[in-house]
């Protein structure tokens, strides 16, 4: 859980107007150029020691946000600050020392580990790349890292295929921890795992956060998981953040109609409540990010849509302290 002492209550990562467009070719022969508006004018901050949850449906740009923030995609426009350094526009060489502090855990532990590399080497590679250990050295550190994520240090000489999905995800976490990062982007780290294994990984991430004062950007589509692990939550829809607030306020008093609809759609694991609950289902599908709707991108599906929604982009504003929303109707 978050550190509440005042020293740590500082901004670690600040994102200002981050935008990422991809050029694609569409049509049967790729004859038409088009732009995917994956991320448009996104701003948020992550405080030191907290977990910011980033939720949204597939294709809403939440993974793009994580990757662009880490400069794994070059942003189309906008700025990212880590501590007080602007990382956007840094050359690779200047970026490299910062990468030690900013790590990522991906969704699929099957495709993120090389099948031909022992897990000890997979975990040791960042150490060697950053010259934190010599190629032969670092074995002690690798054993220590394996222990920290709940794996037997003797596993260092095994290959990924010998491990289950949950164990592989532990390896990926150990690798992300190798350089003693301060900030980790967790990009759907549990979506590919079974329920009972998910709980193990969530608990592990929380323990590690406490032990090493880590800051997480936790990207997920499962709202219950996000509520469990986050301190604050940002909701994305079609490339834009529509609402951001401390988690209890967001879940108990959602202001944006999309957040409201999203929460309504989540099934409650309690049959009696579920029978009584009102089931208002949001209409339609998420439109394409190639030609996103004008104005507020949610307006074609929004029950509250009125006059300005289809042509004026709603302002991203703080309606009450630390509760941000982009909606004309609020």
């Amino acid at each position: 859980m978050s550190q509440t002492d005042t020293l740590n209550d500082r901004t670690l990562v600040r994102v200002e107007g981050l935008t990422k467009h991809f050029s694609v070719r569409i049509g049967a022969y790729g004859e038409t150029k088009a732009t995917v508006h994956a991320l448009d004018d996104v701003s948020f901050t992550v405080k030191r020691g907290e977990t910011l949850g980033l939720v949204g449906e597939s294709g809403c740009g939440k993974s793009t946000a994580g990757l662009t923030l880490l400069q794994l995609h070059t942003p189309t426009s906008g700025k990212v600050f880590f501590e007080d350094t602007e990382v956007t526009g840094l050359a690779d060489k200047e970026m490299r020392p910062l990468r030690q502090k900013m790590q990522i855990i991906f969704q699929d532990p099957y495709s993120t580990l090389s099948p031909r590399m022992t897990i000890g080497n997979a975990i040791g590679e960042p150490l060697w790349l950053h010259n934190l250990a010599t190629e032969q050295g670092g074995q002690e550190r690798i054993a220590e890292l394996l222990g920290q994520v709940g794996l037997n240090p003797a596993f260092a000489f095994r290959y990924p295929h010998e491990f289950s999905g949950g164990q592989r995800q532990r390896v990926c976490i150990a690798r992300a921890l190798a350089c003693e990062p301060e900030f980790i982007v967790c990009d759907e780290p549990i979506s590919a795992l079974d329920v009972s294994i998910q709980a193990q990984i969530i608990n592990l991430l929380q323990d590690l956060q406490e032990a090493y004062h880590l800051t997480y950007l936790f990207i997920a589509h499962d709202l219950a998981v996000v509520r469990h692990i986050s301190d604050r939550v940002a909701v994305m829809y079609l490339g834009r953040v529509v609402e951001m607030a401390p988690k209890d306020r967001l879940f108990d008093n959602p202001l944006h109609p999309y957040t409201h609809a999203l929460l309504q759609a989540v099934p409650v694991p309690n049959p009696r409540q579920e029978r009584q609950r009102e089931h208002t289902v949001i209409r339609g599908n998420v439109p394409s990010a190639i030609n996103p709707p004008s104005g507020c991108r949610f307006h074609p599906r929004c029950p509250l849509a009125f006059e300005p929604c289809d042509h004026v982009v709603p302002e991203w504003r703080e309606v009450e302290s630390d509760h941000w929303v982009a909606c004309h109707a609020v």
Partner: protein
Amino acid sequence: MSELLEVQDLQTRFKVRKGYVYAVNGVSFRLEEGETLAVVGESGCGKSVTMLSLVRLLPPAGRIESGQVLLRGDDLLALDQRQLRDVRGGQVGMIFQDPMTSLNPFINIGTQMAEPLLYHRGMSKKDALARSAELLEMVGIPDGVARLREYPHQFSGGMRQRVMIAMAMSCEPSVLIADEPTTALDVTIQAQIVELVKELRDRSGVAVIWITHDLSVVAGIADRVIVMYAGYIVEEAPVDAIFEDPRHPYTVGLLGALPSLGGETGTRLTTIGGAPPDLAELPTFCPFHTRCPFVIDRCRSENPMLEPVSGASDRGHRAACWVDIRGVTEQTGGTVATEQ
């Protein structure tokens, strides 16, 4: 309610290079007319293989070793291929997890939808297409006539799943088997599909077998729940009892591992330590004993049978466990904590 489907002692195994994988090990259950039965378990627990065995859609390596599947008294396992075809898509409709791969990308939706109607109902092509258009509108796809000429890639994931549901329901089946139908979908689309299936079920009276790994979805749709582990049914109960009075440690563990949207914050999730067992041999012990916090000596030497639990509010509440876990869970405040 009267009995529609009865499965007795179903055993299915797969031939692999090193021997066999015992996927389904003596599963018995019943399905009443019009009821919704949820089958819950983690990957590899045998829930999908069980349901594929019912209509004998197993891949070549899979073999049904024994058992009976009685649909209104007829044993599906004794039918020849021709008779079986009349059942598949006729009396038993199926929807699969991945609507992207269940439709043929080269054939337009209309032709694919008309096929079961032509075969099972002997309709003319014209009538079958007209009926298909009606079915599309019934599952919430407007402008059905025009959309019949379109191809699967022109539909979104949720829409394709609607098409699959329309096809499965087209011959008015008495059983609809839905194998993780919402797993590949986003949460708002999942809610749409769940509401759609409920509505169709209530209107047509079809009995539904809903296979899922997600207990939250089960709460909203099921009448009864079967929990599977390592090819066995470990608990069976009405939906309220599963959530309020679970009797198998595995069920308790699954429930504890669910974070709740209601948000009791700061609590740790209870986890089930370890991983499911290898199914290369038939266990002579309780398959859950290595992960179970209530384990006693007997669990290591004998595999418990599914038996009615004591003091249950419903006669149909059965669990396969040597220990009466009620007393034990009360002491620990109703949770099973097995930290790794």
